[in-house]
Each structure stands twice: as structure tokens, then as C-alpha cells.
């Protein structure tokens, strides 16, 4: 389903180029639960962003279901991101000034879905996340765990088949980790492909099918 071959990624930082990924090759099958492990700056988040089409490769190829998407223009990538991917960011990245349900419904706005219908869909998701009572709370009024649940809800509202989560356990307590594991378990059972990037050395959940260890922009042979 996802085929990354000999991918290099360089960022320009001031006058120098920083190597973020160095000849990475990864294959992920549909329905797999994949864990990217490695210290901060090792390149795991960069690869997650490449897979989610949030950034492009410097060289190499990225095939999504045999389609070479690595060099697609932005107006093709936008619908791809909307229909195929669900992102859960480390800092949750909820939009301040919007309520919980409005944050969840954000991806539906450019799809032409009416406000009434958007709210209906968002409330259904909040119900599944046991967060109905916080539907009209503003993003900044929610606790860390609640914010993460809203971020999960927003990632799922379009019913994507690939879930990408960057350091999802970093800003929540143990109680919410367990809750999050349950949600991920349900998603895996639904056949979703899940990719998590974390600085934890060992996979935090038993659901993981495949683990890649990152070090200095490369995948380490150490397992």
C-alpha cells in the first residue's frame, strides 16, 4: 500500500542544508500497525509527514497504492490528504477560537457539507469518544486528554483509511494512554492502517505489527 524507496530529505536551515532522511526505504501493507521509534531529530516525524503528503521528498520515490505521489502538485495532494489520511499531531494542533465540535468538523468545511450536518457528524464522533458534554467547549478550555480526544475525532471525521500519529503519548497521562490504546485497537479492527511515531524505544502497545528504529535520518538495523 505504501512504498517508500531510497528517499532522501534535506531541509535548508539558514545557509546550510540539514539531512533529515538518508536513503530510507519502507513498505507498509494495508491494515498494518506500524511503529516508528527513535530519538528526537532522527527523522521519524519527517517520514510521517512525507507519507501524509505534508511535505515532499528531496529525491527517491513514494508510491501510494502504486501511484507516484511524491511530486504531485498541491491541488492534487489536498484532496488526497482529506480523503485518505487522518493526522494526530503531538501538540494536538486544535484551532483556538473554535469549539470541540467545530475543530472536529474542520476537514468537512471544504467538502461543502452544511453546518448542521457537520455538527451532527462531529457530535456522533464525540459520543463515541465519551466527550459529548464538552462539544461546545472552546479548544483552550479542554484538558490535555480531552484535547487529544478531539484531535483523534478530527482525524477520523472523514473516515480515512490511514491514521498518522506523531508522538501521541507525549502530552497525556497514563489513564488517557489506555483510552487511546483502546481507540487504536478499534481502528485496527476496522482495517485502518496506523502509523505512529514516538521517541519511546519500545512499542507502547501490543497492537504493533512492525517497528522501524530511526537514527540520524536512517533506519537502524537494530531491532
Amino acid at each position: 500500500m505504501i512504498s517508500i524507496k531510497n528517499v532522501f530529505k534535506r531541509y535548508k536551515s539558514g545557509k546550510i542544508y540539514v539531512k533529515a532522511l538518508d536513503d530510507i526505504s519502507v513498505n507498509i501493507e494495508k491494515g498494518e500497525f506500524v511503529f516508528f521509534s527513535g530519538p528526537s531529530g532522527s527523522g521519524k516525524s519527517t517520514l510521517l509527514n512525507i507519507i501524509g503528503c505534508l511535505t515532499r521528498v528531496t529525491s527517491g520515490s513514494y508510491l501510494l497504492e502504486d501511484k507516484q505521489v511524491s511530486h504531485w502538485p498541491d491541488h492534487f495532494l489536498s484532496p488526497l490528504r482529506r480523503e485518505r489520511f487522518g493526522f494526530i499531531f503531538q501538540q494536538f494542533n486544535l484551532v483556538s477560537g473554535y469549539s470541540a465540535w467545530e475543530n472536529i468538523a474542520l476537514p468537512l468545511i471544504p467538502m461543502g457539507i452544511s453546518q448542521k450536518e457537520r455538527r451532527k457528524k462531529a457530535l456522533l464522533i464525540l459520543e463515541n469518544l465519551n466527550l459529548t458534554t464538552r462539544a461546545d467547549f472552546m479548544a483552550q478550555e479542554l484538558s490535555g486528554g480531552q484535547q487529544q480526544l478531539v484531535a483523534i475525532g478530527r482525524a477520523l471525521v472523514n473516515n480515512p483509511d490511514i491514521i498518522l500519529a506523531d508522538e501521541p503519548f507525549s502530552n497525556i497521562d497514563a489513564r488517557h494512554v489506555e483510552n487511546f490504546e483502546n481507540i487504536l485497537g478499534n481502528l485496527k479492527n476496522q482495517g485502518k492502517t496506523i502509523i505512529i511515531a514516538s521517541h519511546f524505544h519500545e512499542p507502547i502497545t501490543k497492537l504493533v505489527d512492525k517497528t522501524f528504529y530511526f537514527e540520524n535520518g536512517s533506519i537502524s538495523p537494530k531491532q
Partner: protein
Amino acid sequence: MKKYLNLLLVAVQNLRRYKAKSITITIPIILMMAVSSFMMFSRGGFVKDAEMAREFLPDVTIQGIEAGRVVKVSLDIIPEIKKIPHVKTVAPRVWGYIPLKIDDLDISYTLMGLELEDLPDNPEFLEVMEDGSFLVPGDRNKVVLGYGVAQTLGFRVGEDIEQALELCTISISDLKNIGDEITIDDTLGNHGKFKVIGILKNRVQVYSADLMLVSNDDARDFFGYAENEASDILLYLDENGSADRAALMISQLFKNTRVMTAKALTNLVKEAFGRRSGTFSAMWLILFSTVLMFAWSQTTHISVDAGTEIGILKSFGWQTGDIILVKMVESLLYGFLGTSIGILLGFVYALMGTPGISGYCIGCASIYPKFPVPVSCDADSIILLFLIGVIPVTLITAIPAWLAGTIDPDKAIKS
């Protein structure tokens, strides 16, 4: 279509959602547009005044010149002027400024004499009267006052007695009426006593506010002119006459004259108070630059503050065009709201007589302390104000939205 309705709704809701930001952006626009609009409405008022007054101007005005300075003109040239083709009426006019001291205020009025026997039989004269009647042939020691003069001298004029009392220092029981006499003793030693028979309307403020109209004979007595002298000679042409051609002929016939057409005089006033006036032009330039700089400062604000939001939206499938549309509509609404309120405030301020800066606005023409700043508000001015207030802000704000919208979402989020 539903998509665009959604995006428009988001933009409108963002105004309420981000109240603090909306207020921060809108208030400077309101202030700038209030200043711009009262200046434009006042400028329009001066220009309109000049154009309205042109109806009452003679086709050609002739003054005497000696050593490059304006002097009394000899009436001996009138027979020659009458020979010029299409000349209908030639009327000498005696006029001058009369400096007065009223309640410790230095005031200067214009006493203007009219050749009453030569006045055109024009019913329009009746239309310029606020109260009383106009001068008729044979009138002596009678005066028609400009609206502003009447107010300052405590005449009961118009319906707004309160306003009249504000402009003078007398009580309501002392208000004067048509038919009362006034005595004029100016600071140059000239003396006159006149019965007030009428008050001019205030619709032509620039020209009539400081006027006192008397017969030429009375003006001659007041200023000490000889029988064959006048301040200037007025020339009225028939329908086929050309003012420019007549002016050219007169200036060729009489070298010691300065000849001005009605058009030239009107343009002089329009230039003095209008768009080419140095002060107004400079202020316009500063204001317009401020609007642009403000809009540009907003671009920086958007780049830094909303970059993350744009990245988040893009990561969930929003397209660059969607984001630019929302940001542009937001800016359009800020501009429209700020401009609308600003224009309203500016108009009210102009109607109130631009308190605090009216003297500065009127400048050297302020020969009368209570001179009201005229106001004119037309569709052209409103459209121009909206163009100035809305378009620069909207367009310049689109640049950072476009810049933020075109970079990769991960970069935008990290911004």
C-alpha cells in the same frame, strides 16, 4: 457552491470568533477612514460651494492694476467696454473688507456695494433669501446680511435660536430682527449706519457667510470712493457671448486692468480648497500611506500568527485557494466594517463643523471666526472612500495568505 458558502460563513464567523483581533484591526481603519471622510466631505463642500456660487458670479470681473497691485478702477472705461459684442450689462461694484472688534474677537466682514439700477431682473435673487427682502433700486442705508454675519450680530435667523446664541454673546431677549438698525465702526475709522432688510441663505457658505450687501452709493460713502471709481467692474454677457473672448479684448484694450472670468474665479476657489490644495494633498498622501502601511503590518501579523492555523487546515485537505478566499473575505469584512463606521463618524464630525480643526481647514480664508466648514457628501466620494478603505487592505492581506497557503503544511505548522 455549497463549499463556497461554507467558506464565506467561516470568514464571517471568524470576525466574532476572534473578537480581540477584529477590534484591533478594525479600530485603526475606523480612525483613518473617519479622518479621510471628514476631509473629503469638507473638501467636497468647498468645491460645491464654489460651483454653486458661480451661478451668481458675473461672466467677467475687471479690476484696476497699478504697479502690479490691485487698485480702484476708473469708470471712464465703461463706455468702451459696452461696445464689445454680446455685452448685456456693465456694472461697477464698490467693496472692501471691514475689520471689526466684537467681544474681543477680531472679525473681518466684506461690505459689498451693488449697482441696484443695473441688477438683472432675475427671480433667482429671491431664492437666495433666508428672510426679509433683497435690495431694490433707490435703496439707501439698507443692508442685506450674509447668514454668518447675521448670526454673529445676534439676528434671529433660521429656526435654531440656540445655535444663534452660541455664535454671539447676547441673551435671547436681545436677539435682533429684520428691520433693526446696525452701526458699523470698523477699526480703520470707517463709519456707517444701516437698516437690515434681509438675510441671505447659508447654502452658499464660502461666498455669502461674511457678506454685507449695500448699494454702491452707500459703499462709496463708507469707503470714501469718488463718483467715478469702483473696486471692480462686472460684465454680464448675453447667451451668445464668450467670456474668454470678452476678457481677452478687455485686457488688450486696457493694459492697466486685471480681467477674470467666472470660470477662472471658480477654479481659483476649487484649487485653493480642493484636491490640489497643498495641505489637503499632503494629508491625503499621509493618510493613504498610513492605510497601506497598516495593511502591510497586517500581512506580517497574518504570516506569523496564522501560519500554524493555515498548516493545520491544509493538513486536513483545505486547498490554498480555500484559505486565501477565507482570509480575503475576512479582510474585506474588516475593511468594509471599518470604512462604513469611519465614514459615518467622519460625516457626523464634518456636520458638527469639524470642531477643533475648522480654522486649520479653512486657512487664510478664515476672515470670520464662526465660519462654518461646508459639507458635501456624494456617491463619488463614498465610492472613493470605500475603494481606499477596503481594496488596499484586502489585496495586501491576500499576499501573506497566499504565501502561507503555498508552502508545505508541515512548514506552515512549524512557523
